[in-house]
């Protein structure tokens, strides 16, 4: 019993990221989600390199080819072709870039803008922040997809406008969350102590607030990523987002809606991919939330 220990638990000596990963990797579902997420991410980066056919090449000798597991199918076209003779498999691979890749870009954009505005709001006090809050409350009550639909209605349909619309629609929740997180941090005693040491606003922000809120930022980003993916796909499906030739998953479903009797695969598989992508993001988010909670409890 005479053994001297500096820390009650060896685990606590590790860096926060290590502790987080340790808790995270205990949940198989979270790790599976992370794996799926990485696959989708790589797919979004490299899909044009690995897709077997040109996703926009219309081959009029092979219209509506059934998937390869049926008797008329060809093994070169695993999911068959659509009504214009384009290879569905290649289109789905490239679609990861549109649906998932653009969702990531949207969330990153919203995160950066939200960080700027949220920091300004969180660090300021008085009437200014009160008015700001009320405007935010208004924007928060309107759901992101409705807001996106309205913005698309103003800007006109198209993938680029959808990106802007969803970015703007996600912004209020980021600003709100970041503002609250910063306000919470500013009330802590260690901030007061650091200020008494002579730290200015920037030092408080970069040395204390950022390290303490990044966990929440990541959580917010995963939640926003699942919303963004669903919204891009939904807008594409409604014909308001990505337009006809582009291989966005939601748009593929919308295009092949009239073929649902002949080629149910072209509706089922893109939807499954959207589902898997959102599921992976949600699993990672849940795992991260649990791990963060456990880490703080320790």
């Amino acid at each position: 019993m005479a053994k001297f220990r500096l820390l009650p638990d060896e685990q606590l000596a590790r860096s926060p990221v290590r502790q987080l990963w340790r808790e995270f990797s205990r949940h198989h579902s979270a790790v599976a989600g992370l794996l799926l997420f990485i696959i989708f991410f790589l797919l979004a980066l490299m899909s044009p390199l690995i897709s077997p056919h040109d996703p926009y090449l219309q081959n009029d000798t092979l219209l509506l080819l059934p998937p390869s597991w049926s008797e008329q199918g060809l093994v070169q076209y695993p999911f068959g072709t659509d009504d214009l003779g384009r290879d569905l498999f290649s289109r789905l691979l490239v679609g990861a870039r549109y649906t998932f890749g653009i969702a990531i870009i949207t969330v990153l954009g919203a995160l950066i803008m939200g960080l700027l505005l949220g920091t300004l709001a969180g660090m300021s006090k008085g009437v200014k922040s009160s008015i700001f809050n009320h405007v935010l409350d208004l924007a928060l009550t309107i759901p992101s997809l409705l807001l996106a639909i309205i913005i698309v209605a103003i800007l006109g349909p198209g993938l680029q406008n959808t990106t802007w619309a969803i970015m703007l629609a996600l912004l209020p929740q980021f600003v709100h969350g970041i503002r609250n997180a910063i306000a919470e941090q500013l009330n802590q005693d260690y901030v007061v102590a650091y200020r008494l040491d002579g730290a200015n606003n920037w030092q408080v922000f970069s040395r204390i607030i950022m390290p303490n809120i990044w966990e929440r930022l990541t959580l917010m980003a995963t939640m926003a990523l699942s919303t963004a993916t669903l919204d891009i796909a939904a807008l594409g499906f409604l014909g308001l987002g990505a337009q006809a030739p582009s291989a966005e998953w939601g748009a593929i479903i919308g295009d092949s809606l009239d073929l649902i009797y002949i080629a149910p695969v072209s509706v089922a598989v893109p939807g499954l991919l959207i589902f898997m992508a959102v599921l992976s993001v949600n699993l990672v988010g849940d795992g991260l939330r649990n791990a963060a909670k456990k880490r703080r409890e320790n």
Partner: protein
Amino acid sequence: MILYLLRRMFLLAFVFIALSIFAFSLGYLFPGEPLQNFTGLRHISAEQLPLLQQEYRMEQGYIAQYLAYLGRIFSGNWALSFSSQQPLLQEMQMLMPATLELASYALLISFFIGIPIGIIAAIKPEGTLSKLISAVAVAGYSIPVFWWALLLIMLFSLALGWLPTAGRIGVLYEINHVTGFMLPDILLSGTAHRQEAMLNALRHLLLPTIVLATFPTTVMIRFTRDAMLDVWEQSYIKTARAKGLNRGQVLYRHALRNALLPVIRQIGLQFSTLITLAMITEVIFSWPGIGRWLIDSIYQRNYPAIQAGLLVISTLVITVNMLTEILHTVFNPLARKR
């Protein structure tokens, strides 16, 4: 409490003013002539032009125009729809109940299924049943609503042929528009085939309601579960257990009442999501509600309709949000202090 209500009312008024300013400015933001966007008239003849310009105060500044716009909103003299050239307010009054009916059934399902399941999942958080429920819940709120709807249509309508795919009721039945809600309307109508009509309407209702209820139900399961687990660790639960109450009594008297408080607040948040999801569901099931109408308006570039639809839907969502928040405060004295 009165002070709190006053503050809420003030906030509500502020939000409405902001919303109406936004809706008003859409008349300028949308492509095309602002006067056409405000009146909804496709072709304005040379004789009409000066009259309309005076009525809409287009010659004066933006503030006068905005006040004229507000006046028209409150007097019920809304613009015409570009596509049908009918007054928008009346058009929306016909469509609104269909959406509300669908959304409210879905919301009810999410309560009566989501909350009990959430409580069951919280009883043994590490048990198999709880894990299964959590897995289903994650799947439920990850699923894209339009794909889920299409899957169910493929299974139940195309493959099995059990349920209809579109509309609110079969074309054989003629139900007069009284309240706009289909089921009460059937009860009020004097047709001889009331029972068959009811069954038919329910068959039409089943798929859209299930599709629409999936997301809120799964969110509710998860939310209730988390709230229960949170409350279960509070010290007053330990006190109650120490007093000698059994599990059921603690659950009913202490845990449930505290865990369900945040759930009330969830209604408002769920409602806004529900309306958006209802828009997509309506498009797929050809449900004659306001969501499908709004999306059609976007296709048709029917700007007055988009403007009016935005105003009505946002007002509805914000009002419901505010009401649930007030309700939450009534039940929870702790929330009043802030």
